[in-house]
């Protein structure tokens, strides 16, 4: 049996004391061990940002790439070695801003990877500029007279792109979030978990604010029905639903088995065969 301890390492966090990212870290750790994934069996993939530092704080394989480019790397890692589990931890800027085209590309391509977006509605690491999800009107140091664009709705767009696992979590609901992540590992395909992650430095609201705001989706909500999911997302209520909005498997991208080995004998044979076609 694997324990949560195995995932602990000595790396000191560069997050602000009290940041809600720590909650996500705990949830990820708990989900991994409750899914019985060993540290060497998973690759955590991230871009750049506060969120993207998460892989450093777990004892496991990781690939901490470029800002905005976690998804292509994660896609390919899983594609060439389906035995690896792949979890992406990324930020709203990383995933929906700089990485927007890969978000479209990866959702459509549907690799079997799990994506946890720390959505703090801000570019935190660069000290507080608007991200795609920053609420309309928010004043930032750069958008000094307020953000002039309605926010990007990641779940709605993911649905429109054909995402097969569309979920929202809250960094303050650890068990619920860990469950979502565990669920995503049971699902085969691209799973999006957008996580409300209040930033205590640049955020509009404190974590407590969301505590009462969120409510958990129940069985009432039929997660296999696309239109219900759409409707739920479109209906603006006082309260914010968290949980799985939509779930449906479809064809995944990637090799059927580990193709990372370049076997000389096999390659010699195929080169010989291919050469004959040029003759």
């Amino acid at each position: 049996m694997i324990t949560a301890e195995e995932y602990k390492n000595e790396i000191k966090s560069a997050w602000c004391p009290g940041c809600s990212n720590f909650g996500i870290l705990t949830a990820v750790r708990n989900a991994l061990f409750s899914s019985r994934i060993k540290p060497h069996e998973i690759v955590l993939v991230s871009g750049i940002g506060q969120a993207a530092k998460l892989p450093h704080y777990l004892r496991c394989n990781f690939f901490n790439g470029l800002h905005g480019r976690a998804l292509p790397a994660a896609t390919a890692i899983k594609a060439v070695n389906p035995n690896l589990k792949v979890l992406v931890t990324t930020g709203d800027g990383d995933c929906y801003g700089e990485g927007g085209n890969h978000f479209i590309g990866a959702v459509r391509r549907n690799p079997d990877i799990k994506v946890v977006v720390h959505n703090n509605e801000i570019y935190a690491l660069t000290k507080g500029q608007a991200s795609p999800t920053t609420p309309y009107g928010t004043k930032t140091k750069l958008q000094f007279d307020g953000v002039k664009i309605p926010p990007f709705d990641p779940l709605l767009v993911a649905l429109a792109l054909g995402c097969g696992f569309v979920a929202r979590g809250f960094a303050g609901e650890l068990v619920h979030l860990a469950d979502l992540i565990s669920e995503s590992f049971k699902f085969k395909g691209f799973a999006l978990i957008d996580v409300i992650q209040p930033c205590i430095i640049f955020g509009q609201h404190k974590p407590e604010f969301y505590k009462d705001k969120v409510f958990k989706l129940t069985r009432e909500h039929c997660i296999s029905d696309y239109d219900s999911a759409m409707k739920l997302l479109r209906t603006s209520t006082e309260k914010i639903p968290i949980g799985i909005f939509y779930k449906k498997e479809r064809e995944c991208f990637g090799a059927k088995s580990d193709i990372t080995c370049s076997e000389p004998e096999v390659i010699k044979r195929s080169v010989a065969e291919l050469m004959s076609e040029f003759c």
Partner: protein
Amino acid sequence: MNCGASEAKKLTMRTTLLICGKAGQGIQTIGYIISKLFVKSGYDIFAWQDFQSRIRGGETSFRIVVSDGKVRSLPESFDIIVSLDKENTKFYLPLLKKEGIAIYQGATDKNVISPPIEELSEKAGGSKFYANMVLTGIIAEVVCGELSLVNNIIKREFEDKSEDVVSANINAAKLGYEWSLKNNVKKFCKITPKKSDGEKMLISGNEAIALGAIAGGCKFISAYPMTPSSGIITYLSKTSDKTGILAEQAEDEISAVNMAIGASYAGARAMTSTSGGGFSLMVEGLSLAGMTEIPLVIVLAQRPGPATGLPTRTEQGDLLFALHAGHGEFPRFIFAPTSADDAYKLMLKAFDMSQKYRVPVIILSDQYLADSYWTLNNFDVNAIALTDYYAQTQKNFMSYKITDSGISAGMKPGSSENLVTADSDEHDESGHITEVLAIRKKMNEKRWRKFKLMEKEISHPKISPSKDPQIILVAWGTNSLIVEEAAEKLSQSGIESVAVSYSELWPLRVPEALMNVDSMIFAVENNLTGQFANLLKTKGVKIAGIISKYDGEPFTSEQIAEAVRKKL
């Protein structure tokens, strides 16, 4: 080619054909079948195509040089010019040799062979659609090819087409062949029939690169379509059921390079391919490969820039860009194949070096290589080694171990309980972000230390033999064979010349032959500014001048020889 016709025109060892017509008229098919006919008949050919950036219409040509195998450059003018289209005739006919043969429909000039192409096509298949096969048959007869060979080639070329289509095509070729025979057109076949000494390959530059990738152990390619590089991923995709390679079209070039790096991190030998514009978008990824020390092979098939430039033409304008691309400092290899043969071999070396040193390798190709056809002996599959450079499973494995060589052996994640890390930030040996400046310094030095060993892997440039030459012509990449030919021409005309041709460009090695010599050294480059010359200057090489071409076409050896003569 067995042709006893006594009216055959005298031939040198070099026969040259240009086949032209609008995009969409099947010029490439004619050219390919005729090339194949020569090869199947035991001859070596070299062929190159020029297109425009369009799908139908315009001017496009397929140029074939038949030779004894040593000629590897295009002529100024052609023995035979065949055209399927009026505008094209006007455009290309100036390239016909004085004594050459022109073949096109509707000519009034008596010296021109003017077959009833459309009529024969209608006859063969009930439409004008088979015009190109009619012409193929005519050309085959003019060069004294055997019709049965032509039929075999057509069958193979159209193997996925319906039987009707195949037989109409064969019929068209036959009608053309017979028309030519009957009309007793001038022949070009002093080439005495050769025994086909084993089957040689007819292979394009892009195919050779792709085949080299396969032989180099490539298991993953992601790329975004871009002329003239697209042929590489197309071939790898088409053959993926045989090779097990995963070939994926990415949503953009940024994704392409980051996917390749991800796949490589996971342990697959991985590559991407593109042209200048796409390479520009990959530059951040290149820097990532440098920082994370993840092996990566990038084929950069050059075309004239800046920006969109001339999408279907050739240039060597991206050398210094490739060399300095990516922010920050990290070592890399740059290879520039001189031929299809060289391309295949350099791809093997590229994958090997990339794995050994955990650095990116850039292959500088160009449209001239990508879209040219070469006659090659089969590659020696026993030369395929595929050394495994991964660390043995061990306690205390660290992805960025600081070593004397600078090389930190890699490991495949999941292959053992060891943890494999990659970090785009400056990191410590375990791959974790560090902001300790002393570690930064050490890591930067570690990465750069590899360069010293990398230098030793580089083969010296090829130097054509000569004592005390008056002229040294330096070439790199696809120019090399042309420049070698030019040097021979100059020497024959009394100006003792040698060619120094580079295919392994970086780390840069400068042979004695270029240092402190009295010869005048000219750099011959398919660009405007003399990029390689500038590089040589940093090593103290004295460059007397630059011979450059930047109109989108490759050099001919005559142009180079002429340019040298003018500079004296």
